[in-house]
């Protein structure tokens, strides 16, 4: 109905290696920076695009606008002092940093986490996933001209931030999952207030479904666009919803259950088209699963019990030489902490494995050539990128 073929008569020749020979002097190319300040970019990053007409022939991801050297800062801090800074690696979904770091320290230091703390950790991680998906779906709506979805879902996210606030004492950086457990149990009446948020969320999601997922324009802009060949998944380290949208049911919660996920009843939504539509849909469906998981966790969580183990004096805390890798399924895929200790009171090395690291660098750069410039934003957003986890 709306399809048209671009006029390729102005296109440059393709070289013997199958690539364009980009020579700006020819006047056939234009360099265009999408970001670091651009409505079609997520966070502090930019893509250096080389366009020919409205087709992008090359894209290079640039990060580093917010590099704070977290991994290095962690090496200068004692094990407990690392705790407050890990969450800052990822603003929209900070809790995986807290969980992975805490679990890594616990493993290397030989500390047991109380059962109830595991449930609360899972609760927090799902709350974070809820918020992250809200931003992601709102973002993809926004990137495709449907900003109202972004406003609705930001409101819903804010309601969840209220729950974060009353549970953890903070809205964005919760600093709640300490090595040894969590800081506190649930406040009085928390379950009821959470249910109100979830019900509101469901209402807005129903509206979102009508506005976004039952929308001819949205479908037109997303179906068949930004296709990722599932054969590339392993080569490019694709995980999470990006892989699940291409028929691969990768989900750490299922593949390698942590915390209490083996005690929860849930299915991993899978789509098969591996395009922007499929990625948005898989997130939308997984968000519905998350809402269900939040209800399950609150219902199944032990009502009593300790939430924190007494630690050795953290001011002199030393951890024997060793290394470990702890991972979890974030809203964007496999999130992990590689922690190396050397017997001293400081980590020897902390390496944060964020899913955006592979998705927004090698993969995005691979996907961009041949994309219409108008679709770059949607492509980017559909990969669900959080730049700080690339540059850390």
């Amino acid at each position, binding site marked *: 109905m709306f399809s048209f073929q671009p006029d390729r008569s102005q296109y440059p020749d393709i070289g013997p290696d199958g690539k364009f020979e980009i020579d700006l002097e020819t006047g056939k190319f234009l360099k265009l920076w999408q970001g670091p300040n651009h409505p079609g970019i997520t966070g502090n990053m930019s893509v250096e695009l080389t366009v020919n007409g409205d087709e992008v022939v090359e894209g290079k991801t640039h990060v580093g606008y917010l590099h704070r050297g977290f991994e290095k800062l962690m090496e200068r801090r004692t094990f407990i002092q690392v705790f*407050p800074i890990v969450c800052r690696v990822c603003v929209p979904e900070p809790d995986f940093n807290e969980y992975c770091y805490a679990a890594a320290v616990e493993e290397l230091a030989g500390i047991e986490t109380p059962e109830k703390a595991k449930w609360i950790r899972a609760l927090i991680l799902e709350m974070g996933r809820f918020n992250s998906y809200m931003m992601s779906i709102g973002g993809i709506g926004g990137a495709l001209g449907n900003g109202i979805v972004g406003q609705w879902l930001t409101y819903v996210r804010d309601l969840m931030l209220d729950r974060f606030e009353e549970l953890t004492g903070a809205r964005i950086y919760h600093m709640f999952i300490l090595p040894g457990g969590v800081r506190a149990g649930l406040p009085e009446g928390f379950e009821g207030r959470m249910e109100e948020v979830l019900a509101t969320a469901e209402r807005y999601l129903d509206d979102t479904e009508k506005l976004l997922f039952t929308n*001819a324009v949205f479908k037109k802009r997303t179906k068949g666009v930004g296709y990722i060949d599932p054969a590339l998944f392993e080569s490019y380290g694709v995980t999470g919803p990006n892989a699940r949208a291409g028929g691969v049911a990768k989900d750490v919660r299922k593949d390698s259950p942590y915390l209490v996920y083996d005690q929860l009843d849930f299915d991993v939504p899978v789509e098969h088209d591996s395009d922007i539509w499929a990625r948005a849909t898989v997130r939308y469906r997984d968000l519905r699963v998350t809402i269900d998981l939040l209800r399950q966790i609150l219902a199944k969580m032990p009502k009593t019990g300790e939430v924190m183990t007494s630690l050795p004096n953290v001011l002199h805390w030393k951890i024997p030489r060793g290394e470990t890798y702890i991972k979890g399924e974030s809203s964007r895929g496999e999130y992990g902490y590689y922690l190396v200790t050397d017997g001293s009171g400081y980590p020897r090395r902390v390496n944060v494995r964020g899913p955006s690291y592979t998705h927004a660098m090698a993969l995005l750069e691979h996907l961009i050539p041949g994309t219409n410039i108008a679709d770059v934003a949607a492509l980017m957003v559909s990969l669900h990128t959080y730049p700080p986890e690339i540059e850390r």
Partner: protein
Amino acid sequence: MGSLRDVLSPFTAWKHVIETPVTLKNPIGREAADRYRGFHQNDTEKCIGCGSCETICQNAAIDMVPVDDPKEGDSGLRPQIDYGRCCWCALCVDVCMTGSLTMSNEYTWVDTDPDAFRFIPGVDEKPWDAIAKGYQRPGERMLSGLTRPEMMEMEPEARIDNFDEIVAGYSREQAVLEADRCVECGLCVATCPVHMDIPDYIAAIREGDYDLGTQILYETNPFSEVCGRVCTHKCETVCAAQYEGEPIAIRWLKRHIIDNVSEERRLEIVGTPQVLPTGRKVAIVGAGPAGLTTAYDLARQGHAVTVYEAQDHAGGMMRYGIPEYRLPYDALDRDIAVIRAQGVEIKTGVRIGSDITLAQLKADNDAVVLGIGLHMGRSTRVPGSDAPGVEAAIDLLRRITAGEEVPVPKKVAVIGGGNVAMDIARSMARLQKQKYGAVGVTVTALEDFAHFLADKEEVTESIEEGIEILDARGPQEMVTFKSGKRKGEVKGLRTWKVISIFDDQGRFAPQYDEADEIVHEAEMVVEAIGQMADVSLLGDELTEALQWNRGRIAVDADGHTSEPWLWAGGDSVHGPDVIHAVADGHKLAASVSAMLAAKAEVAK
């Protein structure tokens, strides 16, 4: 592609047009959640200024600033927080040793002066100071251990028939666990009479560097092995760890260091005087902790030191007052060996005043130091207190140590509630157990358990060993046989119940319930109340010449008496306490040394 539904469905979004907006009209003033982490509050009365909050702050947002003069157990410093750096992680609240530091749930504050955001919570008044909501530590302190490892001790059955040492000392694992609990605030250092570098030697334990630990101990205390066992550990009473748990077992940690260094190694670490002999001579009367510490210091400065001791062995009250099961003689001997190795000559069995006069010492030496201790026991002087069978605890303890035969009847009553009373009760109990296979000791103390003078563990251990302790009982009479072969000998102790021992101002004013009278059957009654110094060695002339201060020889801050050649210190001047005596020893040595240096100047 694209059905009609896909075209129409999006229009349903228009229904939101008639919805009430969800945004807050005025977000400033919105109250945060109950446990929100907002601006700090500090209960400055509770805060001890230990600085753990500053240590843990990963953003260096906290400075410890003086707001008051320091006093025992309180540095007078309080945390000042720079909110330009604070990340609201609340680790400072979690680590706070007293629980004084909390956070209100107030988070909005507008000020045009950036420096206003740096203030001292609890000192600089803020509107949120009284807000109860906010972040408090949910339970007990979780970031540093609350309890000390249990000390391995001999079971009561195993220890009651012998004088073997009861306390085993910490293992490496236990010591590291305990050393780990220390937050290194150093509040204890000021309280320790000799200002031992406690956090430093505890750190040495954590590092496993016992040589360094020993070196640190010897910088301030040549009686570390003794003090590691019997110190009154005032340091532990100001320990930051005590507020929500047990104080660090500083005494046991000190002992752990010495336990892990052989005697030979210790001598190597401490070494011998590294200066040329000065040719100055100092005589010290009494080989107790004060005298020997003085001797140690002076010898290391190259002075020729001779210590005169009336008993057959050196050690003073550490040997003759403290029972072997608390302080084995060989432990004491190892400390003394290091002192002797400095060239200190100890002449035992020489009683000044009878064998040699003080005047003689004065004539032969550049200075004389008195460290004579409190070797005479007080008596209640109640009727019958001079009867055969009534003993003074301090005298009895000395005889047991000296290996003399002491009478061991089946029933013994002890008067007194201090550590000496426990010492003699437990010593007699051991002798009874050896002789009869059973313990028959009753301790009667004036004080009730709430005001007891003896250490808690002494009381507990005594009871474990089968000793009966009756609190709040006032001695009225030593009951004696009125006729028969044993006429005049003690057959019991009559006591009245003490209703109150102190008046409302805390002054001693015993009130008795005369109706509650008990006669404790006993063939020996031991008086273990106060002690006094035997100052007869001074002679009338010197006694008259000296200045006195309420029964004790008057000394200045350096231990110098009113006689220019004479110094005095230790128990007889400052009351009974080993570590205090060591502190006195250092002071005396410094003062004597200064005088000798001045003399040397003049001689030039």
